[in-house]
C-alpha cells in the first residue's frame, strides 16, 4: 500500500474517476491551468483537456447550477468550490435545487453530483478562508455530506460519492491536506456512505468527532492511555447520513459521550448527535453528554491568538476526556 497525504488521496481518486468514466468532469475556479489552488488537479488539464477540466467563470451559483444540469443530463460532474467560505452564493443551487431534483420530479430526474470543497481553520485563513460549513447543510434532506479525515477514507468515500446517484457535499479539511499521511490501498474500492469508523477502541468514554479534530482526539486518547484512561474515538466520516448504530453501540459500552467539532457549538452537528443519543440511549448514560466545540463567534481572526483561541487544542481535548472518564 502506498503512503500518501490527503491532497494526494484526493488527487489520485479524482484521477482514477476521470480515467474510469468519461462521464466525469471537473469544474471550478482555477482547477485547470493552475491545477487548483492546492495543486490538487495539477496536470489534469494537460492530460484530460479543457472539455473535462473546466476553468469556470468566477460564479459559484453557476458552478453548481451548471453541474446540476450536466448531472440531470447523465454526466457525472465533480464541482469544486475553491474555499468552503465561498459556497454561500451557491446555497440556492445546492439546497433549493440539487437536494430536491429527485424529490420534486418524483424520481423522473436525478442529480448525481459531487461538490468538493476545502474547509476548516488553523491555517491562518482569517475570517473568510477558514469556516466550517457542515452545519449549514446537514439539516437538508436530499443531500449527503462527507468529511473524512484520512487518506484511505478519502479515497474510499470520494469514490463512493462520485459513484453515488445523489448529490454529495464532500468536505476536505485544509489543515489535514499535507499534515495527515497514511497508507492507501491500491486500486478501486469504496467505503459505504453513512458508516462511522472506530479509529481507536476504548471502554471509559466515547468521543465522536470528524475532520482534523479526529487526529487531535486520537493523539489525546493515546496520551491518556498512559494514565490509564481508555477512550474510544469514533470518526464520523459521514455527517448525513449519520451512523446511529456505531455511536449507540459505543455509548452502550462506555456509557459516556463527548462530541468534538471545530464548527461553532450552537446548532452544530454535535447537537443532533447529542439529541439522538438522549432519545435512544438515555438510560445507558452515566454522565451528561458533553460537547467540545468551536466558540459561537462568526469566525477565527487572522491574528494567531484569535485563531488559536478558536481552534480546539489537544490539551483541551485531553482535559475534557479525563474529566468525562472520571465523572
Amino acid at each position: 500500500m502506498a503512503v500518501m497525504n490527503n491532497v494526494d488521496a484526493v488527487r489520485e481518486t479524482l484521477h482514477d474517476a476521470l480515467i474510469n468514466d468519461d462521464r466525469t468532469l471537473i469544474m471550478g475556479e482555477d482547477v485547470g491551468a493552475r491545477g487548483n489552488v492546492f495543486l490538487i488537479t495539477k496536470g489534469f488539464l494537460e492530460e484530460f483537456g479543457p472539455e473535462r477540466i473546466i476553468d469556470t467563470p468566477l460564479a459559484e451559483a453557476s458552478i453548481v447550477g451548471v453541474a446540476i444540469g450536466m448531472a440531470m443530463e447523465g454526466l457525472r460532474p465533480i464541482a469544486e468550490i475553491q474555499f468552503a467560505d465561498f459556497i454561500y452564493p451557491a446555497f440556492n443551487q445546492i439546497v433549493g435545487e440539487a437536494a430536491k431534483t429527485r424529490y420534486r420530479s418524483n424520481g423522473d430526474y436525478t442529480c448525481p453530483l459531487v461538490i468538493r470543497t476545502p474547509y476548516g481553520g488553523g491555517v491562518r485563513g482569517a475570517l473568510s478562508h477558514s469556516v466550517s460549513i457542515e452545519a449549514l447543510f446537514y439539516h437538508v434532506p436530499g443531500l449527503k455530506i462527507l468529511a473524512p479525515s484520512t487518506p484511505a477514507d478519502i479515497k474510499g468515500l470520494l469514490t463512493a460519492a462520485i459513484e453515488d446517484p445523489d448529490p454529495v457535499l464532500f468536505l476536505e479539511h485544509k489543515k489535514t491536506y499535507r499534515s495527515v499521511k497514511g497508507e492507501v490501498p491500491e486500486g478501486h474500492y469504496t467505503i459505504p456512505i453513512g458508516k462511522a469508523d472506530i479509529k481507536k477502541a476504548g471502554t471509559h468514554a466515547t468521543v465522536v468527532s470528524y475532520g482534523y479534530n479526529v487526529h487531535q482526539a486520537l493523539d489525546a486518547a493515546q496520551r491518556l492511555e498512559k494514565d490509564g484512561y481508555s477512550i474510544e474515538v469514533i470518526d464520523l466520516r459521514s455527517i448525513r447520513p449519520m451512523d446511529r448504530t456505531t455511536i449507540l453501540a459505543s455509548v452502550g459500552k462506555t456509557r459516556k459521550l463527548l462530541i468534538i467539532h471545530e464548527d461553532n457549538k450552537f446548532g452544530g452537528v454535535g447537537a443532533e448527535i447529542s439529541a439522538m443519543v438522549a432519545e435512544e440511549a438515555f438510560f445507558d448514560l452515566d454522565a451528561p453528554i458533553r460537547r467540545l466545540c468551536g466558540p459561537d463567534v462568526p469566525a477565527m481572526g487572522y491574528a494567531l491568538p484569535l485563531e488559536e483561541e478558536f481552534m480546539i487544542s489537544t490539551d483541551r481535548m485531553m482535559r475534557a476526556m479525563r474529566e468525562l472518564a472520571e465523572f
Partner: protein
Amino acid sequence: MAKAMTQAGKLDRRGLTDEQLVAMLRNMLLQRQLDNRGFQLNRQGKIPFALGSEGHEAAQAGAAMAFVRGKDVLAPYYRDLGLVLGCGFTPLEMLNSMFARAADRSGGRQFPNHYTNKEMGLLSISSIIAAHCPHAVGVAYAFKYRKEAGRAVLCCTGEGATSEGEWHESLNFAAVHKLPVVFFVENNNYAISTPSTMQMGVEHVSDKASGYGMPGVLVDGFDPIATYAAIKEAMDRARNGGGPTLVEAMVFRYLSHSTDDDDRTYRDRTAIEEARKNDPVPMFEKRLLDAGVVDEAKIKALKADVLRETNEATDTAEAFPLPVAADLYKNVYEGAFEPWQ
C-alpha cells in the same frame, strides 16, 4: 422588431406547412381552453390554485414549433403551458397536476404549471425564479461535450427573472463556452405587480445580449410565425455550433399573476382592454382564415376538439386517486434512506 401582420393579404409563412400552421392555432386554442378550465375548477373550489398564460399563446405556439422532439430539451417556466403542450405534454398531464393526482409525474408533489417529463425532454423546475437557467446551460454543455450536434436547449423565463444573479451567471457561462442554448424571455412587462420599468434600466431584455457577447433578438410575441422564425433561427444557430442567443418576445399578461393575485390593485383596466383588442388567438385565427389555410368549419372543429379533449382530461384526472401519505417518503434518495442509519 418583427411586426405582427394583422393586416390581410399574403401570409409570410416562413416555411411552415399548412399542418404546422393549424397545429400552432390548435395549440393556442388548447392553451386558452385549459387556462379557462383551471380558473373554472378553482372557482368551483375543486383546485386551490390556477395560473394562466392568456396573452402568451402566440409566442409559445411559435416557439414550440421550433422545438425538435426527441432531440431538443426544454427548460420551461411556470407560464409555459403552450410551450410544453407544443412539445408533447398532454392536457391529461396538465389536469393531473392541477388535481394533484398520484398519476401526475411529480406524484402530486409539485404546484401546477411545474411541468416535468424526462422522456419529452422537459426539465423539472422548482418555483425559484431563474434557478433552472444554469441547469439548461449544463444540459447544453453535455450536448457539446458528447458532440451531439443538432441538439439544443430552449430555456424560458419571464422578464422579471432576468434580474436574478443566476440568470446572469447562466448567460455568461453559456457565452464563454458557446453552448447550444437559447434563452427565451417572454416579456409581459410585469413581474406580479412590478412593471419592467422598475425591473430593469433598459427598455428591452434583448438589449442585454450584447453584454454577454451573444445575439439579441426582439420579436412580437403576438405573432406566432415571427416568434417561430426567431426561435428557429436561434436554435439552428445553436445546433450548428453558433452558440447561444437571447430572444425576447413581447407579450401581454391578460390575467392576474395567478388565482392568488388580484391585479386590479396595480394595473388599470383600460390598458388591458386595449391589449385585448389584438388578442393573439382570434388574430391568428383571422390570419389563417384570410390566407385560406383554414375555413370557419375547420376552426369550429378545432375548438370543439380542444374542448372535448379538455373535458375528457378533466373527467379522467378528476376520477384518478390522490397520492397516499406513504408517498411523502419516496424518492428522497435512491432507495430508502434515513438521516440516521
